[in-house]
């Protein structure tokens, strides 16, 4: 007789305790590997300075901008020079800011080189970036051709520095691109109608240093009413978006309005405590009233456009002129060859102002020392005059140089006239005018700018939609900005 069989659960190939131990070990391993940081760069002390880090792979996170497109398309010279490979991740700007913030929070230092937007990345996370002077002063490392002094001074301050006192001396990023808002107009239509417009309007409509925003408004209305060549006179980037703040700021500064008391310094070097908002001032209110009036005669699509939208509308021939970033010159020239002119933005009662939107590239302090040194090689190469000149002629990008010496190169000077192999240079004169100390428009460089920016463009969107008055919009924006500033930077 066989022994009775007892009902038992089927045996597992793995015991319960073993399974739990395995799970815990795998979890711990995953946790530790996630927190472990990255390995340092390859290093050969006997190699010549440019080749010491051969075999290293650097990670560069950037906004999807023209200079990065040009660099990504031709990294071979850098890899041949250094033996370093570069992995480039390009993202939309707000996605980039998120990725950088989370990388810094994790402490992993996934990105060696960071496209450090002065307002979304540099100001909020300045302590997370290396002071580049240490690399420039290190005799073992290649130096910047022309030194820091070759960079346009306002660019170096606005895109490369942050803080007060000793912090303001640090150079945290090298100016990498330099988009600036200028007046883009259909030169063919202005020429065609110049005499009629002059007769009707009582002034020469051709853009000049003396043209005012009121005249810009009158020209816009003239195109609306007096010609069928275009449907509207002007188009704007007035979507509820960062672009709306940029578009409005040109008018705000022209009318004498300011964001904060020490606007020039706050814009150029930045601070963590800018004081109370000045948007309640009569000048800001006048600027808002004018902007509301201007948008009332602009292409209605303006309220849905950011800079790309207004650029596409301009190239599609919907309107005769617009304020937009000068980097759009290359695409304008492709679609409307020889038909677009560029000028500094009109002036208001106080001055002319063109929003500067340049950015620098920085080295993360979270990565090991050798990686930082390898990253420095990339910064030197990526911002070198020869690289900037090559980017200008790139078929995929078209750059915006940040060095004085590049603008003095004979082929770059020649490219400022048509036919141009570097179409972005067609706007060079207007851009240089806009960069003059008295004309440059620098938004506040404060860590909490994103929230202030949102508060402002939300109120401006309400203003343009007719939901609020100019005074009401400015007051509400100022109230919110004061609240944000009083709370301080949270992260």
């Amino acid at each position: 007789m066989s022994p009775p069989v007892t009902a038992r659960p089927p045996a597992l190939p793995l015991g319960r305790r073993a399974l739990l131990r395995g799970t815990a070990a795998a979890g711990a391993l995953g946790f530790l590997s996630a927190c472990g940081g990255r390995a340092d760069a390859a290093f050969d002390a006997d190699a010549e300075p440019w080749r010491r880090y051969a075999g290293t792979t650097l990670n560069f996170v950037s906004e999807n901008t023209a200079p990065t497109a040009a660099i990504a398309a031709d990294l071979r010279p850098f890899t041949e020079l250094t033996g370093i490979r570069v992995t480039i991740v390009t993202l939309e700007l707000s996605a980039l800011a998120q990725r950088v913030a989370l990388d810094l929070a994790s402490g992993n230092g996934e990105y060696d080189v960071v496209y450090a937007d002065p307002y979304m990345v540099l100001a909020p996370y300045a302590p997370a970036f290396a002071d580049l002077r240490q690399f420039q002063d290190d005799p073992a490392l290649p130096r910047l051709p022309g030194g820091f002094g070759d960079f346009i001074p306002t660019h170096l301050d606005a895109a490369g520095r942050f803080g007060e006192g000793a912090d303001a001396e640090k150079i945290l990023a090298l100016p990498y691109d330099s988009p600036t808002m200028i007046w883009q107009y259909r030169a063919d239509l202005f020429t065609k109608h110049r005499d009629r417009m002059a007769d009707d309007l009582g002034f020469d409509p051709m853009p000049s240093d003396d043209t005012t925003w009121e005249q810009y408004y009158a020209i816009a209305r003239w195109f609306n009413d007096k010609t069928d060549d275009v449907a509207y006179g002007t188009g704007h980037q007035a979507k509820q978006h960062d672009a709306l703040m940029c578009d409005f700021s040109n008018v705000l500064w022209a009318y004498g309005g300011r964001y904060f008391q020490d606007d020039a310094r706050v814009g150029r070097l930045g601070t963590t405590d800018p004081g109370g908002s000045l948007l309640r001032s009569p000048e800001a209110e006048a600027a808002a009233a004018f902007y509301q009036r201007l948008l009332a005669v602009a292409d209605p699509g303006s309220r849905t456009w950011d800079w790309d939208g207004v650029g596409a509308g301009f190239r599609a021939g919907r309107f005769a002129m617009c304020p937009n970033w000068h980097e759009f010159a290359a695409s304008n020239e492709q679609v409307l060859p020889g038909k677009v002119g560029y000028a500094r933005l009109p002036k208001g009662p106080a001055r002319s102002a063109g929003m500067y939107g340049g950015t620098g590239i920085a080295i993360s302090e979270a990565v090991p020392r050798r990686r930082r040194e390898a990253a420095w090689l990339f910064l030197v190469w990526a911002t070198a005059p020869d690289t900037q000149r090559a980017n200008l002629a790139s078929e995929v990008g078209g750059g915006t140089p940040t060095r004085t010496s590049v603008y003095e190169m004979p082929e770059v000077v020649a490219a400022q006239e048509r036919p141009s192999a570097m179409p972005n240079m067609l706007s060079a004169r207007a851009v240089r005018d806009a960069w003059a100390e008295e004309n440059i428009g620098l938004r506040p460089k404060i860590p909490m700018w994103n929230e202030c920016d949102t508060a402002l463009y939300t109120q401006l969107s309400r203003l343009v939609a007719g939901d609020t008055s100019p005074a009401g919009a400015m007051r509400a924006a100022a109230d919110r900005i004061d609240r944000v500033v009083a709370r301080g930077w949270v992260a």
Partner: protein
Amino acid sequence: MMAPGLLLLAALSILPFAAVVAMSFSRVHLLGGLRLEAVGADNWSRLLDDPDMAWVWARTAGYFAVTVGTEMVLGTVLAVFLWRLRHGRNTALSLLLLPMFVAPVIVGLLGRFLTDSTFGLYAWLLEQAGYSGDVMADKTTAFAAVTLMDVWEWTPLVTLIALAGLTSVPASVLEAASLDGAGTLRTLRHIVLPSIAPVLLVALLIRSMDALRYFDIIWNTTGGGPADATKTASIRLYETAFRFFDFGYAAVTGLLMLAVTTVVARYFVRLLDRNGTPR
């Protein structure tokens, strides 16, 4: 053997929830590694003096009512039509379900391009029909447009669920009603709809959960504008967390959304219970 399951549940749900609760009482620092600094109920008290939060929730409620209401009515009507279709039901159903398989972010991008006044097909068609404005520039039309995009995408889900309910209505009951002289509308009202009510409640529950978190389409079309006309709670949550990096206040907004979602879900589950649906 429950332990691995519980560990997994803790990792996926309980720990993140506890972290969010902790964040809601903290100032969250990112620089130099994640660090929480206790601030008591500061983040919660900000809810009371936030001038925009009440409007955000009012707008969310509006979206919820319009999108879910339209989807339920339209979805049920389409299901009835399909149910009564004698030929080509499968083909019609397949075509009808197509929008549901498109990722919401793609629906948003499609919507943005189709309504763009420079090169959008819908914008051009509207212009030919005499509409001179810009759909996304006006508060009312922008609100209507993003609502319609959601309705376009998710009505098929309601149709599918309702159709499943309709196919299970006993043929003998319908025949009896027909013999008793009940017309189509009367049969629908007194027999069909009561029969599929529990199934419709399930559809309502699923869509309600989604509608309260409505994000992708709005973010990719209007970004919350114009004039905040399309800024819902989820857009506000995203801005607070990933534009302002104010994770403490974002945690408060997120927990509030969770509470509202839970209350709505509980309400519909109770309705299901009252209808006698076994769970």
